[in-house]
């Protein structure tokens, strides 16, 4: 499977669903596309025909505002029809702005209040250990979200309880709503922090290069049995793949998008390398 093409499909579906609605969390959706493509199309033990399959791998998108990216990945993976993506955030939808396990087929955790999803993922990883079903838990954390104290409470616990079936990813796109992460409340040096908390750390230079992400996930899997959870730090670009979104800087966290904008974005994505 050509993961680069999968990434293009996911990006286009993000833009068309948000463009149809008129606004959304575009920047932080586009920055995690390569990760979602690798997890859903290469890595995770899941079955769209049996979304609640026992022993399945779990994905917890703790930065719950990347819901539209998760939905685009799920639809492309066959969990539900792609037409449903256009119901994003409409009244009564099964695809709310932030991930909801009780509404969306394939979503395993309700997230959105930052910091909490990561602890929930740690709880699920503990549950998988207790059940002994071999499931792995993948958790996506935002860089701004990493300013939440609860992230570090969970980091401490996961290492102390030796949850090596937990693989975390930090979407280190360096931007948050009020400005750059470094200016607002710097989380650097991030690899050192996770290492100090007892985690294996993999620092990916370009988290929007699907090959680098794929290799990092394989490397993370090799840590299963190490007695330590793994954090993969993905250096990404907020808005990656759509130049006019990237140029907005911190303003692309949640922004308006017309259907014409979406068409322009999709043309760029389809024409891109």
């Amino acid at each position, binding site marked *: 499977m050509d993961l680069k093409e999968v990434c293009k499909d996911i990006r286009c579906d993000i833009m068309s669903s948000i463009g149809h609605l008129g606004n959304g969390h575009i920047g932080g959706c586009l920055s995690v596309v390569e990760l979602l493509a690798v997890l859903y199309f290469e890595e995770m033990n899941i079955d769209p025909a049996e979304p609640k399959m026992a022993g399945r791998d779990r994905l917890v998108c703790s930065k719950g505002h990347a819901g539209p990216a998760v939905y685009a990945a799920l639809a492309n993976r066959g969990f539900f029809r792609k037409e449903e993506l256009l119901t994003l955030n409409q009244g009564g939808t099964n695809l709310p702005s932030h991930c909801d396990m009780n509404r969306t087929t394939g979503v395993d*955790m309700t997230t959105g*209040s930052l910091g*909490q999803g990561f602890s*929930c993922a740690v709880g*699920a990883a503990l*549950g998988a250990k207790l059940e002994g079903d071999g499931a792995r838990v993948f958790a996506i954390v935002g860089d701004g979200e990493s300013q939440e104290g*609860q992230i570090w*409470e969970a980091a401490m616990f996961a290492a102390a309880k030796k949850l090596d079936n937990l693989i975390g990813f930090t979407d280190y796109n360096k931007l948050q709503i009020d400005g750059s992460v470094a200016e607002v409340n710097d989380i650097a040096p991030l690899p050192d922090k996770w290492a100090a908390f007892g985690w294996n750390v993999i620092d990916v230079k370009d988290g929007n290069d699907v090959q680098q992400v794929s290799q990092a996930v394989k490397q993370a899997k090799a840590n299963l049995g190490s007695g330590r959870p793994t954090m993969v730090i993905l250096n990404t670009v907020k808005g990656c793949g759509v130049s006019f979104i990237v140029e907005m800087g911190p303003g692309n966290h949640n922004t308006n998008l017309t259907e014409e904008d979406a068409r322009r974005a999709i043309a760029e994505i389809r024409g891109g390398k």
Partner: protein
Amino acid sequence: MEMRAVYAQCMAELMRQDRHVCVLDADLSKASGTRGLYPEFPQQMFDCGVAEQNMASIAAGLASYGFKPYIESFTPFATRRICDQVAISICYAKQNVKIVGTDPGISAELNGGTHMSMEDVGVLRSIPGIVIFEPVDQVQLKAAMPVINDYEGCVYIRLFRKQLPDVFPPDYSFRLFEADKLREGCDLSIFVSGLLTADVLEAAERLAVEGISCEVLNIHTIKPIDRKAVIESARKTGAALTVENHNVIGGLHSAVLEALAEEKLPVCRVGVEDRFGEVGKMPYLRQVMGLTIENIIATARRALALK
């Protein structure tokens, strides 16, 4: 027997019966009475250390995996400190997590104002779907625990952890969501939960000597409140009094007022009058907070005068 010892016995029994029942602590398992169970249940008990928010969300994650976690701490740290985690990780996500808060209200005694939750019921009561239970004695607690364990959803157990006088007979049968009538009466309905129930019965006894007939209902489940029982009793007697070890804002008084909002009758109150706690032993705290039998009697007379 102390309430926490009864609670620990119940948890041991539940964990033996079902390996999915588990307990999470935040460095207060000794206070909750469950410390001694750790050696028997190494795969079911986890101390998260002093990190209550993480504990609450980890419990939600375990629940998503089919486990039945109980999280334990002092009432302020099991409620107001983790309010958003209870609201979002647990209740909004519909996770089957039980919350056990010990030392409610003035029973925090020498830990003082920082540890004295007068608002825990109020904080949680506005979260949709949550159940709030406050036991009166060891008989009720013992009867309630298996029922609560079988209930699929979040239940907050507001647990006084030391010894309480028995109010219920040994053959008591517990019904979640249904108030228990402790005394029949025709002049005044007294609604009470938890710690002060025995005091209300004593007050009712003394008022009977004066010829005042009090009906006493134990509202063990503050949310959802047994509206039918509350309205029926209040309509019968024509006056109501609430008695609680909690701020009068947000707790039992508020819940009873909501139930009686369309009834034309006085609803008086004995409770903490919108103030923080302070350090002291129970007799002192009862005095300064007005949680005395004398104040219950005086307020009962006022309610009758308002009829």
